[in-house]
């Protein structure tokens, strides 16, 4: 049985950091999965992912989320912040996790999509799909937030590669 689910890299923060980067991502997998377990320094910002250092208006996201009161959906078009991981109305300082799937990330003929779940129990539970309008293979993943806040010490970010065969 071939091993189809392989860890590519893990970053565990020894001190708070504003962002985390995975670079030189091999094109030898079919899909990528990014697992984030973190807490933020203060509330209010939103977590995004940029790829290949692209800060242009090439990202869009449609999200469905529940905030404990209502079920809501929003779309962000032509977004320069990146693909939104969540939440739309800003995180709190409570522990959160996100599970991000990048489909067919290394082909050079189609735009790239990311499907993700975001979970912060005092804020919201979210399901989102994002698009990066580029045919380039994804070689760098840059996890950031839009408010100059930091990911807490002890946060972990692990990137896995999945092979179809």
């Amino acid at each position: 049985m071939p091993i189809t689910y392989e860890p590519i890299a893990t970053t565990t923060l020894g001190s708070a950091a504003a962002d985390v980067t995975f670079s030189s991502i091999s094109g030898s997998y079919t899909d990528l999965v990014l697992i984030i377990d973190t807490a933020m320094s203060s509330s209010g910002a939103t977590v995004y992912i940029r790829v290949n250092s692209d800060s242009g208006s090439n990202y869009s996201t449609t999200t469905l989320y529940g905030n404990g009161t209502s079920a809501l959906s929003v779309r962000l078009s032509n977004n320069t912040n990146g693909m939104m991981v969540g939440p739309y109305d800003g995180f709190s300082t409570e522990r959160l996790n996100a599970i991000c799937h990048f489909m067919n990330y290394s082909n050079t003929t189609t735009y790239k999509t990311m499907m993700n779940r975001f979970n912060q129990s005092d804020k919201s539970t979210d399901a989102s799909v994002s698009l990066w309008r580029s045919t380039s293979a994804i070689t760098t993943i840059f996890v950031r937030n839009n408010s100059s806040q930091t990911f807490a010490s002890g946060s972990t970010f692990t990137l896995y590669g999945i092979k179809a065969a």
Partner: protein
Amino acid sequence: MANTYTAIATVTATTSVANIEFTSIPATYTDLLLLYSIRSAGSYDNVSIRFNSNTSSYSTRRLLGNGSSASSDTTSGVSGSPGTAALCGAIPGTSQTANTFGNQLVYIPNYAGSNNKSVSCDSVDENNASGANAEMTASLWSNSAAITSILLLGYHGNNFAQYSTATLYGIKNS
């Protein structure tokens, strides 16, 4: 290359059971993934998850669609025992279509770490009739202890039906 995705244990109910439990979970993995297919022996239920037999410090936020509308609530919106376990999705029971089971996926990153534990759960219980939900929940267990046992139980106190099954996987990042 190490095998990063390992089946730790599978439990299948050979008769109606009060709960499904995984004990002595080793700390040798990075994350845990729990997949199960469960039917309630009562009229209906939700699956709830308790760690290390601890009955406090849980919170949950939920998003669900029932075939006609979408809504969101916290455990305060569900009768039962809020706060004594993390809430996952609904499962069918005797008031729903026979032979239908609810399928759920639970992901727990850094389960052996010293931070609070955040939990993701995706749930479906389609049964070709009313009373079926698709749900997502975000839960937190505000406890710094490593997770060494996981107890699945009916949120409303009902047993799980025969043939309910659950498998716990460990995922390594190296």
